[in-house]
């Protein structure tokens, strides 16, 4: 007999939008991995409709959590009970799967993270700084340039016999390095393997910075699907790494678990029907003061439901009335 009560977790990321449903025992029942593709709202609403269909008509949602760089947006649209940053969400999910985890490595579309835990408690973390080199987007772009499907990218690396050295510090440098190597006749396999190694080197230089990597190491995020990167990590660490079964939706999974922990019966969830509404986001340049904030306004069927982006708060708090417009 399957439970009909679920908690939803949504990770609205820059590259992918993930939705999961877990049951009351915390087991993952449904998961969706969708490409955000610059249309976060419609992808999210599409995802909600899909998950509704999969869960069936009798499903009751007891809580919703959102995370990812679009967590605020997702939170407003679905009516979240908890809106959490990615670090906390990822750590929470991983602890649930690998209770004694020592280090979590996560590489997503726009950022990469390393999270250090001791006795199940996060004691340190790092995220890439202002630069997106070494993240999923970069691999995506290189795969497109070389005309290789992203799913096959890692397999090419595994076929390499002698990986070339690629400059990993900067995506622009790396790209020109790769082109130079390719024009001098190196095989595509060796170049891709070199790129994977460069990425891993860059990851450890930028994020781990010589700190002790505690074992077991768990690797998650969309990039964990890339067997070439996994192999490069294992080579660098000199040991096996764990890739959780739902590595690609761990953020959403964590958000769902957090919602389950927080929810005390009542939920803010606006219901699946809500996903049929027409949501629109528009940006407004506020000219009220020299700060010239860029305000984001989310409206449902034409009337504003939320605004943010202002430094002074007059838009955020005035979402319900239109006098500030």
């Amino acid at each position, binding site marked *: 007999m399957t439970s009909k009560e679920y908690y939803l977790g949504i990770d609205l990321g820059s590259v992918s939008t993930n939705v999961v449903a877990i049951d009351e025992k915390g087991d993952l029942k449904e998961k969706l991995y969708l490409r955000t593709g610059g249309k976060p709202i419609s992808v999210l609403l599409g995802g909600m409709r899909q998950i509704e269909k999969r869960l069936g008509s009798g499903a009751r949602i007891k809580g919703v959590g959102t995370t990812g*760089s679009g967590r605020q947006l997702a939170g407003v649209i679905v009516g979240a009970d908890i809106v959490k*940053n*990615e*670090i*906390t969400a990822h750590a929470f999910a991983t602890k649930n799967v690998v209770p004694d985890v020592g280090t979590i490595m996560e590489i997503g579309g726009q950022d990469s993270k390393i999270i250090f835990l001791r006795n199940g408690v996060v004691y340190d973390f790092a995220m890439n*700084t*202002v630069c997106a080199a070494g993240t999923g987007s970069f691999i995506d772009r290189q795969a497109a340039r070389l005309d290789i499907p992203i799913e096959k990218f890692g397999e090419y690396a595994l076929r390499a016999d002698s990986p070339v050295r690629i400059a990993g510090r900067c995506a622009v440098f790396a790209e020109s390095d790769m082109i130079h190597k390719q024009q001098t006749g190196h095989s595509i396999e060796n170049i891709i393997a070199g790129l994977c190694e460069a990425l891993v080197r860059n990851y450890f230089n930028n994020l781990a910075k010589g700190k002790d990597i505690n074992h077991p190491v768990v690797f998650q995020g969309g990039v964990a699907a890339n067997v070439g990167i996994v192999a490069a990590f294992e080579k660098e660490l000199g040991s096996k790494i764990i890739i959780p079964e739902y590595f690609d939706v761990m953020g959403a999974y964590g958000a769902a678990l957090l919602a389950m922990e927080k929810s005390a019966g009542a939920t803010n969830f606006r219901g699946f029907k809500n996903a049929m509404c027409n949501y629109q986001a528009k940006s407004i340049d506020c000219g009220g*003061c020299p700060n010239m904030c860029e305000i984001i306004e989310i409206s449902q069927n034409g009337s504003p439901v939320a605004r943010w982006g202002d430094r002074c708060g007059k838009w955020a708090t005035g979402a319900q009335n239109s006098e500030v417009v």
Partner: protein
Amino acid sequence: MKTGSVTVGIPRGLIFYDHGRYWESFFKRLGIKTIVSQKTNSFILNDGVVCCTNETCLPVKVFHGHILSLTDVADYIFVPRYLSVSGRELCCPKLCGLADMIKYNIEKQVKTIEININTRHLKKDTCQSIRQAAETLGINYHKMLSVFKDTIVQNVSFGAPYHANHVSGNTGRPIVVLGHSYMIYDEYLSMGLIQKLKNKGFSVFTPANLNGYIKKMNAEPFVDKFFFNTGLENLGAAFTYMNLSGISGVIYLSPFACGVDSLTLEFIERKLFKKGIPFLKLTVDEHTGEAGFDTRLEAFLDMIV
């Protein structure tokens, strides 16, 4: 030019956050009107970024923006040249070269009042610059020199707190915010960091809440031989706070590409790590999106609570 009819513009940037009030009183006592540029906003940031060379740090770019915002309202703009404020120490090279950078970056002619602060070769350099400023402003040199001694010399050597009472509240959990004062007190550049922490119920402590002498004595490993004065405040503050009980975490706000921070941060990070005090380094550049900043901050606060 007759005294009283001249307005001197003071840019709200860099050393203003430490010594601005002393300079204001310096000019006031000379009978000169001053006008301080408004708080950093997107116009000031954009103007600064456009006219400044690309390689400098964000606060220097913003300082250029402050100067441009003053050109229409002030007759002269005050640009101090901080070379050295104590012993054999030097200020950050960008403070030393600030006046020159402005000359070459800002094409529109800006009339500046330039005063050197140099304790290494105090007399000659400083007096010469004061003589020139006095001449420009039509003020008696000896008068200016004596006001300078009273208002500036007395006060600058220990990076005295300008915002000591700005940082307050003693009921919440204590958290330390480090960084150059022109980063942490500039609400625009710091993305309201101090206010965000206060809103979450923390009591915020900064280098300005500590006595200068104590900071100097704790600025390991550079006690008594610090070369760049600019980093001493943070180093000393970090190692002073580190030994107080109950500090729940330390956040260091650094502008991208700050050379001095790149060194001090390493010292601080390693020591705090050994001590087991949670540490977060926040780097900002000219992006206005706060999402990445907030993610790191929220995660850090989740971690320490």
